């Protein structure tokens, strides 16, 4: 069993009238790429900011490397590379100066790594931060997070603003980091990104954790996308059985997600005079939307 790197136990953060997060509990093991998904405003950034010691929890506990996130934020940060969702860099500094500041704060000589990462991500180190586009500012953040070669990477919406080619390079870098034993915790609302990278995923809705599964489980947990077309009209409530979701039915065709006993649905389908049938694995997007129903 791998060592636990991140542990959340009943973590709660409330902002008075505004919703924060409520009773979030999960753990992330060493070497894992863990996805944290949910729509905007679900509480992903609040959870991450609490983990980073920026926010003090109103209940529960959060720890990284066995240390309390609020109390030992500075010690924890020595081994954590953090990429915030928003660009938060000093606009008057040049990229090289900004990254040197990061290296200085971590007490590392990051010059060679800075050069290597900047080259791979096609980042111009001589430009002023304020003059950069959103995507280039994101690249500064990625290099800044990777610069100290941390044991844990926490990335909030990391690919937001990156073009597909850079996203591909970024994914490669993350896989390499994983190969070196780095634990990666990333939040996203882009499911394809999570699908490509993550081993496990936590799903957040309205500040509450509603699902925690491995990617494999999530896809193999009985969810199937079934599309049928028939020779005769399908009765209106024909698919009104437990396990059917996201039903889209027309006169002689229907499409739905099914999660349940395979024999039940097969018996049901046998009652139809089928013209065509397609049974496939639903995309994560569809499973995710199903969670939000």
């Amino acid at each position, binding site marked *: 069993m791998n060592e636990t790197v991140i542990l959340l136990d009943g973590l709660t953060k409330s902002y008075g009238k505004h919703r924060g997060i409520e009773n979030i509990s999960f753990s992330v093991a060493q070497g894992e790429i863990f996805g944290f998904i949910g729509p905007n405003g679900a509480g992903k950034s609040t959870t991450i900011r609490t983990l980073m010691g*920026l926010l003090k929890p109103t209940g529960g506990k959060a720890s990284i490397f066995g240390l309390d996130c609020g109390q030992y934020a500075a010690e924890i940060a020595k081994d954590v590379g953090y990429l915030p969702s928003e660009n938060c860099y000093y606009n008057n500094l040049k990229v090289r100066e900004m990254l040197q500041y990061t290296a200085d704060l971590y007490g590392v000589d990051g010059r060679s790594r800075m050069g290597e990462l900047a080259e791979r991500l096609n980042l111009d180190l001589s430009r002023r931060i304020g003059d950069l586009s959103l995507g280039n500012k994101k690249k500064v953040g990625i290099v800044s997070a990777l610069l100290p070669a941390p044991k844990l990477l926490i990335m909030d919406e990391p690919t937001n603003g990156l073009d597909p080619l850079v996203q591909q390079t970024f994914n490669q870098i993350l896989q390499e980091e994983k190969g070196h034993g780095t634990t990666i915790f990333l939040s996203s609302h882009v499911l394809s990104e999570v699908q490509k990278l993550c081993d496990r995923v936590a799903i957040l809705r309205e500040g509450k954790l509603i699902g925690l599964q491995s990617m494999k489980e999530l896809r193999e947990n009985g969810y199937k996308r079934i599309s049928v077309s028939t020779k005769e009209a399908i009765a209106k409530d024909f698919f009104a059985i437990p396990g059917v979701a996201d039903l889209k039915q027309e006169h002689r065709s229907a499409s739905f997600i099914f999660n349940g006993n395979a024999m039940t649905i097969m018996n049901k389908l046998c009652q139809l005079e089928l013209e065509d049938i397609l049974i496939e694995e639903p995309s994560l997007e569809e499973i995710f939307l199903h969670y939000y129903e």
Partner: protein
Amino acid sequence: MVVFQYEWKRNQKYILIWAAALAVCIFCMTPVYYGMIETPETLSENFTQGGFFETVGVSLALLMEPLGMYSFLNAFFMIAGGIFGMHLGLATQTKECTEHTAEYLFTKPCGRKKIYRGKALCLLIGIGITGIAYLLASFLTLALFKPGFPLVEFFLLAISFTLITLFFGALGLFWGTLRPNNRLPLLTAGLSVFVAYCITAFSRTIGNRAISFLSPFSFFNPSVIHETGFYEWSYLIWYLLLVMIFFLISYQRSLKRDIAV
């Protein structure tokens, strides 16, 4: 020291411009104002009858002394120093929030204690440099245009400027930790200093000592310095207490507060 170095780099131009501007102004304005009072007759009647000088703590008798006009001018430079100090103190705390850099800095291994110390050190050094520039320029202009002034009294008057700047710097730091998302630090500083100045002028006009404790401009009265050769102890102790409270509360608060991003 890393946080201090970058904080200094960020504020150095601002500090040096203020230091140079204040030094040049006191150097140039002092001989002009001394020229206005070559004889008491040259003073505007409005000034002499309206108690104008008394509101800044300079009696007519003191005005005719070697350091009288300097004391008068110093009162106005203390307003400028107060605005500079409070703006710098506020900005060191609010800039991270308003420029959205807090999430970067506060997630680095330096920790909140070092960040606070780095910023406070930058504030203190900024105030120190401005104070030294002001003191030297004041000394130079008086030595050139009004030689033979009492040195200790001059020193106490010139230091009043730095003490006022420090007071408002600490107040800015304190207020900045309470309201880190303040997007108008210069306006806040200007208004706070103006209100404090009005409180002192009001307390002197109506002769109410209790009210005078509410404003630092009352603590370093030039007439008292001239008469007793030092600041009033009660004010000085109150001043030190307030400055310490501002620093302590802002320190404690900056360790515990949620970082607004």
